[in-house]
């Protein structure tokens, strides 16, 4: 495991997604509206679309038919091709958590810099 310094913390705005290459690996890096950085492998586990071209949306849940609730502070990235969702922190697909996920990477901020560990 190695730490990779990317750029200053203020470089990305909350809600922004972008693709970055770290040590020859394509990652989807995003900043949640609350300001937290998250990194997933930039390749949907379904058909390998770039998640960095996807959309950051709130996690939606519901208790009964017609009930749509947005979960506070939980975000998913939605694949641009077939709308698969992945939890931005864990990479788990909420529709099929046992079988579908993408790898997640630790992102920290150190000395004002965004740092990815892989």
């Amino acid at each position, binding site marked *: 495991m190695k730490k990779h310094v990317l750029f200053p913390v203020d470089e990305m705005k909350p809600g922004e997604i972008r693709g970055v290459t770290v040590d020859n690996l394509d990652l989807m890096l995003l900043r949640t509206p609350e300001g937290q950085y998250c990194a997933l492998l930039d390749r949907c586990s379904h058909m390998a679309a770039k998640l960095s071209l996807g959309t950051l949306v709130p996690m939606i849940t519901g208790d009964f038919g017609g009930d749509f609730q947005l979960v506070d502070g939980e975000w998913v990235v*939605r694949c641009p091709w077939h709308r698969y969702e992945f939890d931005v922190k864990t990479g788990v697909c909420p529709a099929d958590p046992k079988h579908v996920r993408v790898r997640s990477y630790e992102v920290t901020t150190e000395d004002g810099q965004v740092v990815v560990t892989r």
Partner: protein
Amino acid sequence: MAAPQAGQNQLLSRISAGLFDRWEGLRVNLLETGVAWVPWFMWRLDQQYRELRAEVPWVKQLPSDHMRRAVRVSTQPMTDVNAKNFMKLVEMAESDRMYLFATDYPHYDADSISVLNGVDKELQDRIRYKNALESFPRMEKLING
């Protein structure tokens, strides 16, 4: 030709409305809708759910898991599905609990009681009566007193 489509529509409606999530004890038996569509329908529904979960966030499990747990399908009409292919269907559905033996007697197009001949004995027992006893728990008492 409409019977399988009707069964699929009713299942799709019940699953996507969240009935199996809301009432965990709910069981649905489909009669006379055929057998071969079941694995395909499970695959297709799972695929759609993975893509469109946010449209039905009250559905908490893969549709195929709901079906294995709560849906049973009668074997009649077996049409031209032979024993070898029927066993493949069971394998593809990843459950030996989903099919219930039925003939539709006394209709003119009833299945013969021999339609399961050639199917593995253990699976035959499952389909011929064990699954039915599990689906209708009071039946065993009625039969055995």
